[in-house]
Each structure stands twice: as C-alpha cells, then as structure tokens.
C-alpha cells in the first residue's frame, strides 16, 4: 500500500493512461496469446490518440502490464536515447510515474522497436515489441480471410516458396529483417522488424515476450522457454549476420553492429547497436580500436541510419 500511494503521476489521466475496461480487454488478450504461442489474437477496443508509427501496439501492451513498482526501459534500434525511445519513456514517466532505466538488468519491462538487448534477459522480465505488421504472410497474401485460414490449417508452403525463390535468385536467403519463425512447432510468426541476428535470442528465453500491433489490433506472445525456429532448408541452414570488425568503441566481437559514417571523406566505423551494452563494456574497461577517439565517441551517440 505504501509503495502504491507514493507513486506520483499526472492525475489528469488514469494510471498508465488507458481506461480500466481497455486494460481488462488487453489483459485477457495477452493471457490467450501466452496460451497459444505465436498465434495472433485480435482485440477490439478504441483508437489510441497516438500516431500509429509511434508504437501504439507496444504502448497499449506496456500500459496494461505495468504496475507502480515496475522499472521501465525503452529502446529503439538498440538505443535508449533516440527520439522514439525518449518520447515513450517520458510518456510512461508522466502517465504512470514509474521509474525508468537504461540498464537492461534493472528493467522489469523493456519496450523495444527493432532489437532484442544483448544482455541475456531473466525470468519475470517482460519484453514488449512494437509491431508495425503482425502478419508474416501479408506480402504473399493480402486477404486476411486467407491468411487466417493458412494459420488455422498450418498451411505455410507459400512462405517456404518465397524463401526458396530468394535462394534461386541470390544464392542465399536474402531476408535479413522480420525473418519468419515457427513458434512451438505450430504457428508461423513475424518477429517484428528485428535483425535476424536477434532471432536465436527468442528461443528458450527466460523472459516473457509480448508483441503488440496497434493498427492491426493484434497481440501475440512467446512464453518463456519456448521453441522458436527460424525457417530454413537442409541445404541452406539459417545463419545470423556476422561482421569482420569488432565494435570500434568497446571491442565486442559478438554484438550486433551498426555502421556509422564519421566524416565526408569516407571515414566510418562499426559500433554496437545496443548502446547500454556498449557503455557497460566500456565502463568495465573494455575498449575497441577507436575507444579513445573523441570524434568516434561523439558520433557513437547519434541515431543510426534507417
């Protein structure tokens, strides 16, 4: 009780912005999503007075899960300090009065767009993905009635055909983002536009993974410790991106790297996309080839190119 009464938020709004009836509906949707891993649960409800590109689906899920004692982290393409991440963090500070953090381990809820943190997540943490297009088959089949049927009968041949066409054309599977996965051996699922580098982190993760699509009004989930397989073929097994370089700032060899242009003379470097991971490594004394270069450090905090 004392913790609750200590919370301060802008009382022009209900706690966490959403009204209680909308939260109840989203909470019921989340529970069914957990019970049917990878299946897109539709939900009704009113429009959020927020622009869709802003991550309304993720915001609705976070608002329905978050409590006054939770600590929230928000990342956009791995960074805590981009406009999108800062706006959402400030939104929840204002409407829920919750603590926020940039440290992955300290967060109870992490709302993300386009990345999974490099630090392994733990039990009880909730990772909320913002999803622009929840339907992995949409580009192949525009009709919702048809894609529903395909999921209903697990008819996923079309997706295999598409990936195989990639192989025929490029000699390999060219998809690098939103790389489709099979969840618990049953549902084909879009992991949202994360790089395929992050796909293996979804499998057997101790945390709860929730996906919110605002425009399409769907929620889907991967429970902890669940099988998540990236689609592939025996002769073309799934592979994640690798880099010849290490992170120029912290020297990490196994993180996802963004290319950063340093000057107009072709100077460039590769740095960790996960800013919290990179800063933590540097604080612990790890350093990369440009780790002491002031120009490189100044550029490291700019938003990566889309």
């Amino acid at each position, binding site marked *: 009780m004392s913790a609750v009464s200590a919370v301060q938020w802008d009382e022009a709004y209900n706690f966490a912005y959403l009204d209680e009836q909308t939260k109840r*509906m989203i*909470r019921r949707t*989340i529970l069914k*999503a*957990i*019970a*049917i891993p990878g299946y897109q649960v539709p939900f009704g409800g009113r429009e959020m007075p927020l622009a869709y590109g802003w991550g309304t689906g993720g915001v609705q899920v976070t608002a329905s899960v978050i409590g006054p004692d939770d600590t929230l982290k928000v990342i956009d393409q791995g960074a805590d300090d981009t406009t999108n991440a800062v706006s959402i963090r400030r939104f929840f500070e204002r409407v829920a009065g919750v603590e926020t953090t940039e440290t992955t381990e300290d967060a109870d809820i992490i709302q993300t767009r386009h990345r999974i943190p490099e630090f392994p997540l733990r039990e009880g943490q909730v990772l909320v993905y913002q999803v622009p297009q929840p339907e992995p088959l949409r580009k192949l089949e525009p009709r919702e009635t048809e894609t529903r049927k395909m999921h*209903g009968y697990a008819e996923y041949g079309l997706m295999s055909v598409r990936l195989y066409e990639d192989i025929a054309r490029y000699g390999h599977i060219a998809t690098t983002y939103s790389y489709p996965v099979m969840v618990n051996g049953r*549902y084909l699922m879009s992991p949202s536009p994360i790089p395929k580098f992050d796909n293996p982190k979804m499998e057997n993760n101790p945390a709860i993974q929730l996906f919110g699509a605002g425009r399409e009004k769907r929620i889907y989930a991967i429970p902890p410790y669940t099988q998540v397989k990236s689609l592939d073929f025996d002769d073309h097994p799934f592979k994640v991106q690798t880099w010849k370089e290490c992170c120029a700032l912290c020297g990490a060899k196994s993180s996802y790297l963004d290319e950063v242009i340093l000057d107009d003379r072709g100077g460039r470097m590769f740095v960790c996309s996960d800013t919290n991971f990179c800063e933590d490594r540097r604080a612990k004394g790890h350093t990369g080839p440009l780790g002491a270069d002031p120009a490189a450090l100044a550029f490291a905090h700019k938003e990566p190119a889309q």
Partner: protein
Amino acid sequence: MTPSASNDLLPGFADPVFDAQSAFRATLDAMSYPGRVQTVPTSLATPEPLGIAAGSLALALFDFDTPVWLEPVLAEGPAAGYLRFHCGCPVVSGMGEARFALVNAASLPRLDNFGIGEDRYPDRSATLVIAVPSLTDGPGTRWTGPGIDGSIGVQIAGLPDDFWAQWADNRELYPQGIDVIFTCGKSLVGLPRTINVEA
C-alpha cells in the same frame, strides 16, 4: 450505488486500478511459468466459497464482454450477485457459451462441456478457474511444455480421477482447447492448453 439490493454485498478491490494490475500480473506469471505457485498480493473479502485468488482474477478480468459460468454452489450463493455487481459480467447457464468458468475440483464438470474456440480463432475458448484444496499436496504429476524449463513436478490436490485423461484429450485439440488456472486461497497455478502432463 444503491445499498438496497443486498445488505451483505461485500466490497470489491480496495484500489480498483492497482489491485487489478497486481492480480493480472500474478495471473500472467502463472500462465507464463506453468506449474509454479504464484500469489495475488491483494487482500479481498470474497463471498464464501469464492477464494481470494479466484475472486481477484474475476474482478481483474471479467466484464460485460465475458460470459461467465458458475458452478451451482456459486451461482446460487452470494458470489453470483457479487460478480454481477462488481464485474457486470453476464452469468450464463450454458457451459459452452462461457469465456470463463468458476468451478470447484470436487464437483468439476467434464472439460469437454466448455468451448475450445474455432480453428481460425482458437483464442475464443474458455478459461476454467478451478478451486482446489491444495496446490502442493496432491498426487505427483510431471509437466512439460512452453514456459517450463525442462520439466516441473506439480501436485494439485482434489481433482477427479480421470482429470488428467481428460486433459490429454484437451491437449490433442491444440491449438484449440481450454486453459486452466488452479486456485487455492491467495495462490494460483496456470495450466495453458500447451502443457503435456504425465500423471
């Protein structure tokens, strides 16, 4: 709010916003980590024989969109009025129409009475909230499936002898099927349809 309807109508959550949130989180953890005992932190005076965890879950999740089936003891007692008043949920007489059911292990109807959803919409199925005498002192079972790291031993007490055989039949319907939440006092254990149980 008129007091005339029932003098003995018990109050709902002391704090409707935070108590609903904490009850939901306990339920989310229960469904996400099946077999582990979770506890609702709310203190709630529920009409007998409705337990605190079951009552909290009802207040957190039921409303006019969720037809609810109540076992006869609840339907004929003060619980029905309590739920209608605080949740506004329709109490239905047909098990097949219910999105939630509040039942007791000792008088549990067969699971196949309840809605399993549709092939394209398997989420439109019932969630059974089953009150049991103990979540830890019953016969040993071993659970595997999503949310469980390897396997977990679970000892739910008071279930009908053929309950786990019925569960195996439910499991066969996947991705359709019912989901179960066992409750005892302030505690609960989730059993989503994905879980395989060795009795």
